């Protein structure tokens, strides 16, 4: 007889297919599965350092205002923490959208952090210390963020358009240039002698309303978050409903066919990098003039790099990104609290974040495993069927 033994279907196959086999829902089920896996891995790591993973996860959520803490200081509540959480999520959302727009056009914008820094610094230097009313200063900050981000992103696109320089190389190099030139300018012009960071921007220019009292509670209200939600809708509209979005997607899916169809491929590349830069610029101003109010020299915000994983986890889909940036921010934000209350070292908290990002990037692999298991099962069924026929 045949080597029927080889075709045995393992428990794992049945499990994977039953759980994730439905292709229509895979866009949702697979990321959720990846997240679960990463939480299990994180739990093991936390167990290894001798802490209770459940308390650790609970404190993680408490830190982000998603779970009530045992006690709060005066004028603080869960809502305070949650607002602060949204404040940090805003730049992440913008940054991940920036990555997604470039990605749809077949480009890899690894320079989001540099574009954020340029936009944040330009807005800080131009508006941050001006004594003008907030209604003028805040829109100005946003505008500068958009323009500077678009210019830097556009430059990367232009370098590819004109000289065929790979966008990954040019954006990494621009990251360095931005980082050190801006450090130099901060040290020479804007430094705070005590903190060694740039001086705090004035409240009028800040996109977060810090320590605002509402209903007896003091909280930071992130104005940029509303903008970020609008950006989610705008990017979705751009990609699904506009001529420009269709052209960008065509270039990303098959640049040869795009050219054949009469699309100006090079202009599309510049356009997508400008839009991506715009969004990165918005991430920059909501980060440096929102959540923080100053710029730490000689570092790049990790947001711009985490955004790549967030965008992947969200399947480069604006709505998906809304959820994935929520998750990743919850972990990064909550990890500080977790380390202080549960006693999980900060380093381990970073390991947990890293694990989640790592697993989130494995979506394609999980999809492949499910498909293989499914193939094995259909095969086995076919064989059983055949066997019956032979027996009968």
């Amino acid at each position, binding site marked *: 007889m045949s080597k029927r033994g080889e075709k045995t279907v393992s428990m794992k196959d049945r499990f994977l297919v039953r759980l994730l086999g439905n292709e229509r829902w895979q866009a949702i089920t697979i990321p959720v599965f990846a997240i679960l896996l990463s939480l299990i891995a994180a739990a093991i790591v936390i167990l290894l350092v001798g802490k209770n993973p459940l308390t650790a996860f609970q404190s993680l959520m408490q830190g982000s205002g998603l779970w009530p803490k045992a006690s709060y200081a005066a004028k603080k509540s869960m809502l305070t923490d949650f607002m602060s959480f949204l404040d940090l999520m805003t730049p992440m959302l913008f940054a991940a959208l920036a990555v997604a727009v470039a990605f749809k056009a077949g480009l890899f914008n690894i320079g989001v952090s540099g574009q954020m820094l340029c936009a944040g610094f330009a807005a800080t230097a131009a508006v941050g210390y001006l004594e003008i009313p907030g209604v003028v200063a805040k829109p100005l900050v946003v505008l500068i963020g958009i323009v500077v981000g678009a210019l830097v992103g556009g430059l990367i696109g232009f370098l590819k358009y004109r000289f065929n320089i790979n966008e990954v190389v040019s954006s990494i190099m621009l990251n360095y240039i931005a980082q050190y030139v801006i450090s130099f300018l901060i040290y020479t012009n804007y430094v705070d002698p005590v903190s060694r960071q740039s001086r705090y921007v004035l409240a009028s220019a800040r996109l977060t309303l810090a320590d605002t009292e509402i209903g007896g509670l003091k909280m930071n209200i992130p104005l940029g978050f509303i903008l970020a939600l609008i950006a989610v809708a705008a990017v979705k509209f751009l990609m699904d409903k*506009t*001529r420009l979005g269709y052209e960008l997607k*065509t270039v990303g*899916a098959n640049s*040869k*066919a*795009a050219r054949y169809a009469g699309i100006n491929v090079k202009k599309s590349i510049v356009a997508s990098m400008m839009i991506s830069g715009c969004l990165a610029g918005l991430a920059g101003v909501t980060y440096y003039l929102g959540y923080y109010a100053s710029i730490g020299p000689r570092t790049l915000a990790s947001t711009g790099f985490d955004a790549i994983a967030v965008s992947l986890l969200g399947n480069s889909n604006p709505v998906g990104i809304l959820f994935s940036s929520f998750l990743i921010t919850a972990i990064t934000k909550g990890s500080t609290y977790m380390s202080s209350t549960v006693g999980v070292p900060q380093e381990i908290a970073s390991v947990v974040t890293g694990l989640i990002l790592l697993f989130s990037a494995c979506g394609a692999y999980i999809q492949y495993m499910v498909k293989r298991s499914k193939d094995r099962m259909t095969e086995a069924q076919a064989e059983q069927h*055949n066997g019956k026929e032979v027996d009968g």
Partner: protein
Amino acid sequence: MGEYIVEMRHITKRFPGIVANDDVTIQVKKGEIFALLGENGAGKSTLMSMLFGMYEPDEGEIWIRGKQERISSPSQATKLNIGMVHQHFKLVQNYTIGENIVLGIEPQKKALGLFPYVDMKSANERIRQLSQQYGLEVDPLKKIEDVNVSIQQRVEILKMLYREAEILIFDEPTAVLTPQEIEFLLEIIRGLRDGGKTIILITHKLEEIKQVADRCAILCQGKLVDVLDVASTSTKKMANLMVGREVSFQLEKSPAQYRQEVLRVEHLSVKNQDGFEVVKDVSFSIRGGEIFAIAGVSGNGQVELADAIAGLMKASGGTITLAGKDITNAEIRERTLDGISYIPEDRQSYGLVLDFTLAENLALKNYFQPPFCQKGILHKEEFDRYGEKLIGEYDIRSGQGIRTQVRSMSGGNQQKAIIAREIELGSPLMIFVQPTRGLDIGAIENIHKQILGERDQGKAILLISLELDEIMNLADTIGVIYNGQLLKIADASTLTSRQVGEFMMGVKA
């Protein structure tokens, strides 16, 4: 039992929305040439892919030399002495012929008894020996990128022989060859059979089957129609069985009604990326209602000529005039709007965006115009409506209609989609490059009728083909290209295919 070397019993293979093979049983005798004949999407390639381990059947059994086997990968097929030459060669361009042949089973030696290295010397010796034995002359030290298609095919055959394959599968081996090269290949195949090998030949060319095959299985829409003894069956009968209806070999071609001149090309030169002049001082013109066909061996500049007219390559000299307007330096989009439809040679990398839906692909050339797009906003319902209309009018078949991802469609239906899109543009000039490559008789007949229909509508048609028969059947005027130059332009009725073949080889310059 021992009579058959390969038996595929009751094979069924399903893909989403389609049954590629439905309870197919074939039995191949040792030492025969067994042909598989069928329309595009009839399931010939799928069936053979299962024998070669690229897919596994959903149902059915495969028996090799009287033993049931499960072939789960090509390497397993190789272990069972099964080899396959694919339609698209699988060679590493910048490796030598020898390196390509041994790839995966490199003979190793150890320098100083310690450091392993690939022993190319003895490998090349073995390759020379094999190529002499079977009359497949190659120089194992030459790189693949430096040799022509017919040599590359020999390399693929040698690859199988080097692996001691006994059962050789050829997937449409003559699709890329000139008439002379086809003769040579068929001779080789006969020689292999006489040397004791078993050959399975996938083809849609009836003359070839008639020439070399002993028996022939006919597939139609995934089902086995019949297995015939070739010597006692007429080509006409085979064709009818394959298509499932009466086929007319002779196209009904009405006399040409020439109208005004549409395209004029004067002293056109084109340089490729390396700055090498691939089209040299070419001049011709096409009138409305005329099929101007360019014959030539592959790689003589015909594709670059078409690309230059459509705007995908720049002209380095000369002028292109479309309906009185100089378009030599116009953008691609402008040329499309001025009236050029282009069916490119490479439908998968140029003609279609494989990951897009059928509806999106059908609107690829006019998505930016009303009603599809107004003020930068797309109207997806118009895409859908247009897609439905074209699918109906041009009989484009797919698993999920307008929502089908084009990647999952068969080659014939992909080509139908491109032709539908380009005809619907209503351009006065239509450029067809190899419009029937890799397609079967039924699809070819259909496309030929469409080309003639467009001509009768008064379109100017530039047809570039490597198939001499296609050119002789369709052309009103023939131009023969050799080494980038148009050697001859003449009314089709004044040339025989033998003469055209000679010009194609550069004779009678």
